[in-house]
């Protein structure tokens, strides 16, 4: 029974971490990536707290001057730090996402990558890289189109 409980608790923590990492790697929407980061962080924090768990322990707070067995307070203090850092990371990521949305009118990573490369090419004055669909050399490449950097607010999907 005890074995089963411990495995279930560890599976929960590692499962959250797994969901978070898979979300970061697989999602194409930036807001979902940020949310997945939050889930992964929750899993990591849970794993840290679990390492300090004791079956006979109480919360590390002395009540009425009586101090019995307590769980390990060191991982709890570490997790307190980790949560605060996580808030900072998420705020920064969301600020960047807000700016990306304003600049490109979308939060889809694939779309943003295409548009960002096109903008970079246009600003550097180089032609976009040749591809199978648009082979270079058939006719002279048109000059790079000066596309406005900011999509209008109506243009967002």
């Amino acid at each position, binding site marked *: 029974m*005890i074995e089963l409980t*411990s495995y279930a*608790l*560890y599976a929960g923590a*590692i*499962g959250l*971490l*797994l969901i978070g*990492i*898979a979300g970061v*790697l*697989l999602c194409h929407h930036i807001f979902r990536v940020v949310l997945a980061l939050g889930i992964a962080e929750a899993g990591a924090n849970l*794993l840290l707290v*679990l*390492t*300090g*768990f*004791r*079956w006979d322990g109480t*919360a*590390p*707070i*002395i*009540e*009425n*001057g009586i*101090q019995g067995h*307590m769980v*390990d*307070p*060191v991982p*709890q*203090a570490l997790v*307190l*730090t980790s*949560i*605060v*850092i996580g*808030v*900072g*990371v998420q*705020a*920064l990521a*969301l*600020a*960047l996402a*807000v*700016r990306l949305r*304003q*600049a490109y009118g979308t939060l889809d990573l694939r779309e943003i990558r295409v548009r960002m490369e096109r903008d970079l090419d246009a600003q550097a004055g180089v032609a976009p890289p040749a591809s199978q669909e648009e082979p270079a050399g058939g006719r002279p490449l048109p000059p790079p189109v000066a596309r406005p*950097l*900011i999509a209008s*607010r109506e243009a967002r999907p």
Partner: protein
Amino acid sequence: MLNRTGSLLFAGGFAFLLFVLVAGLPFGDPSMPVGHHVLDEAADVVGAANIVTSIVLAYRGIDTLGELSILFAAAMAGGLILGHPAGGAKPAPPAGFILRAGADLLFPLLIVVGLYIILHGHLTPGGGFQGGVVLAAAFVIPVLARPGQVPSHTALAVVEGLAGAAFIATGLAALYYDREFLAPLLGQGRLGALVSAGTLPILYLAVGLKVGAELAGLLIRFTEADAPPPR
């Protein structure tokens, strides 16, 4: 498709690695060499009933200072990225009656709860970080209700700077009395009393005000960022 399989393989392998690592840990009966030491002596040496607080502010005070600087750097970077709202952008119209009345009702309650959590950080679960977030919520909810009336960022920055300076000054005061940087002063007091644990409540008050001002400023910038970007 290959990309997706590779990502899933990576995530699965990482989880397997963690499972192998935790399978070797004695669950429910950790050896905790540091933890035992801290649990044995924290009540006498620091005098805070909440032992996590003694670790965060007394044993690892300088780490907490580093954590505050990371939070400060994140808030500053967020402010840099979001910037000031474009001039001439109209703020959103005031919210409906329910949100406005709720904001008026919640503001004093959240202030009291936030200060309670901060000031009892050495006695109960809670402390400067948690209470600071509640304080930030107290100042952000009125902004949601009335987007036109934003608290001045200068005032928030002044509160934040003074709180950070108070944290460092408390640490330097310990140096003046020939103790380590950020070592608790003023004696331990009676265990479990509100005025106990020396300078720990002062440190947590500074942390709470700093976190509250930082988060409130950052969240208010988010509410302002809906305007078109400055170009």
